[in-house]
């Protein structure tokens, strides 16, 4: 078959992996809006936005793990919690020993025997804390992932296991009241690595810290997603056993994605603590772990920016609607799950290409069937290549 040179180039062009130009524009716009937000928002809302961004970090990781890898983890709360509690322990110890204090957090003397348990002690050191926040959850995720995925526990089995784990984790935290604060969690922090948390300037800096972390995470995740790793991950999602015969270990691939998602969740949890001023078992239990997924699904689970946008939308909606109409919010939240997952499995992000397609069809432009970009087609996660009718 003969082709003109330009046709060959055009074809090659389409076969290059990576997010499209519109994604980058959207990314830049998002970064811009978030960077400028403090100009228009008051201090309270800046804090709120920072908190929502912390949640969205979990969502970014889930986008890769679930959207690309098909691993539906209902247990991200474990990692969010690990990061959060490690940070909180450090901050408690730092607060307790600031100003010549006893070095023992107040709740320990209230509920316990007034001694700091041995496993808290390393976290007196800020350096150890900063190392532990990524390392501990990654190790946990690695151990878990290696064990579980190697034994080919997958699909619903994995989801249910992860859910049980997060339930067990929350129970453990609640039960170990004297060393974890129990259901009260850890709260009442004054300083964050030497800075007064309560200071408006510091709060703004904290917001920018969170924002930068989110943007870096987005970039890293975007690259991972469109890298060969992303493609293999997709292959593992669709036909796990097949990739084995090509020399990959699907367990390692999935574990890598799981560890990565755990890392992001943990950092999210760690930053959540200074931002929200509290971490407690109810931030990491079964329900919050599932709610993390709602944003991801809403925005588009396998898209570049969908998880962040979706999770921000959900957080904002929850915040603004739940107070005014508590029961209405429950209905709406439930309905969102149903509508988004059932009718819009690709999330709102997939509406964009289909609207564009529709517009093109209406205007009768030629080549409306063209653009079979990989990134577009696989944005629809589960819709089978052959959509069969079923009545």
């Amino acid at each position, binding site marked *: 078959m003969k082709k003109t040179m330009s046709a060959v180039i055009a074809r090659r062009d389409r076969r290059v992996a990576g997010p499209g130009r519109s994604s980058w524009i959207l990314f830049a716009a998002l970064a811009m809006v978030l960077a400028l937000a403090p100009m228009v928002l008051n201090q309270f809302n800046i804090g709120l936005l920072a908190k929502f961004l912390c949640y969205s970090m979990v969502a970014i990781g889930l986008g890769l793990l679930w959207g690309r890898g098909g691993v539906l983890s209902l247990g991200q709360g474990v990692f969010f919690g690990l990061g959060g509690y490690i940070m909180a322990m450090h901050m408690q110890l730092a*607060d307790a020993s600031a100003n010549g204090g006893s070095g023992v957090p107040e709740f320990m003397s209230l*509920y316990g025997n007034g001694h700091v348990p041995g496993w808290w002690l390393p976290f007196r050191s800020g350096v150890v804390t900063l190392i532990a926040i990524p390392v501990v959850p990654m190790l946990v995720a690695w151990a878990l992932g290696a064990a579980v995925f190697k034994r080919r526990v997958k699909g619903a089995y994995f989801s249910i296991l992860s859910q049980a784990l997060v339930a067990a984790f929350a129970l453990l935290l609640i039960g170990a*009241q004297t060393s974890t604060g129990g*259901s009260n*969690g850890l709260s009442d922090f004054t300083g964050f690595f030497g800075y007064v948390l309560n200071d408006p300037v510091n709060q703004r800096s904290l917001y920018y810290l969170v924002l930068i972390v989110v943007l870096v995470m987005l970039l890293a995740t975007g690259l991972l997603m469109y890298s060969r790793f992303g493609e293999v991950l997709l292959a593992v999602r669709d036909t796990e056993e097949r990739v084995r015969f090509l020399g990959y270990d699907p367990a390692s691939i999935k574990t890598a994605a799981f560890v990565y998602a755990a890392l992001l969740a943990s950092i999210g949890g760690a930053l959540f603590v200074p931002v929200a001023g509290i971490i407690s078992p109810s931030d990491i239990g079964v329900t919050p772990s599932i709610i993390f997924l709602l944003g991801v699904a809403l925005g588009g689970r396998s898209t570049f920016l969908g998880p962040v946008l979706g999770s921000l939308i959900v957080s904002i909606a929850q915040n603004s609607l739940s*107070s005014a109409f508590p029961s209405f919010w429950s209905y709406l939240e439930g309905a969102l799950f149903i509508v988004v997952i059932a009718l819009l499995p690709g999330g709102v992000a997939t509406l964009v290409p289909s609207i564009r397609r529709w517009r093109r069809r209406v205007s009768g432009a030629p080549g409306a069937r063209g653009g079979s970009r990989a990134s577009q087609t696989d944005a629809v996660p589960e819709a089978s290549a052959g959509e069969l009718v079923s009545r």
Partner: protein
Amino acid sequence: GSQVSTASGGSASASVKSCVDTSGSKIKIGFINSLSGTMAISEKTVRDSLDMAADEINKSGGVLGKQLDVQAADGASDPNTFAQKADQLIRQNCVAAVFGGWTSASRKAMKPVFEKDNSLLYYPVQYEGMESSPNIYYTGAAPNQQIVPALDWMKSKGFKKLFLVGSDYVFPRTANKIIQAYAKANGMTVVDEQYVPLGGTDFTTIVNKLKDSGADAVFNTLNGDSNVAFFRQFASMGFNSTTMPTISVSIAEQEIPGVGLDNLKGQYTAWDYYQTLDTEQNKKFVSDFKARYGQDRVTSDPMEAAYVSLYLWKAAVEKANSFDVDKVKANSDGISFDAPEGKVTVDGENHHVYKTPRIGQVNSAGLIDTIWQTPSPLKPDPYLKDYDWAKGLS
């Protein structure tokens, strides 16, 4: 930004400017209760009585001539949400004071917020004590107004061997620490101490243990739903109020039908208020409440404490002639109110209130009769400072 200096790190509060708007004919206050999630069961009733109090006050001319403009928030049974919404009420909605909270977790979460924003929280539920914040008024019972009197009463009845059962969270654990200390000093023994996870419904093992423990009474700090399962299992193993008296500190009137009157009849409770109290104020409170929300509704201790909290704040504001937080605080000491439970008085030192502890017994109508009470309101003592046996506790 400012760094933590060797001086006080936490005193930033003094510099916080309040945004409360006192210029108009209305003054904003905030209610924060869980209307969703697991705690909604209990906290909704508190919201109801708060709403009633606000309406009453508005009908009788408001506070300092200003109508109360209630800003409502849902804590969603989640400490972190409580903290966030409290912050929102104070800084965004600019309320003059906030009323609500139930679990210790929600209070602990809100405490730093009120301290940093220098605002006021009125917390209406009995709790484990060991706390007093300059920005919180605790209108429920301190441990010495509920747990300790219950123990005194049990001692007077000759119960010597106690079996402790509770939900696994802060209040029961701390309450049981107090009980252990009390028992040690008063010649009683605690034969076993058992916990179930919050919401747990499996009591087969615990009741088996109870059967073999030789206990002569149970001190019950179980929360909410778990009581149903506990008392069902309890009853089906042949226990009742005569064979195994049980004193509960978290079962109020509204929980009785759900737990099952058959299971509870004759059992004991410890609170400061019961719907059956025979005071003028209470009769009015109960009948107003029923008129407003329905004849089948009941009133309970936390509801009453919440209702009272709004009036205590009103009195303090009027005494201070200002909504300013610092002025209200300065004028709170000694403020008193003729509450449905009798006279309550604010202790300006520890921010709790003088209340009258009462032991009740569940009657066949599903209400609780007072069978014992202290002769006069008791001074609150959240840290149990005045009790020698409690020295090691805090």
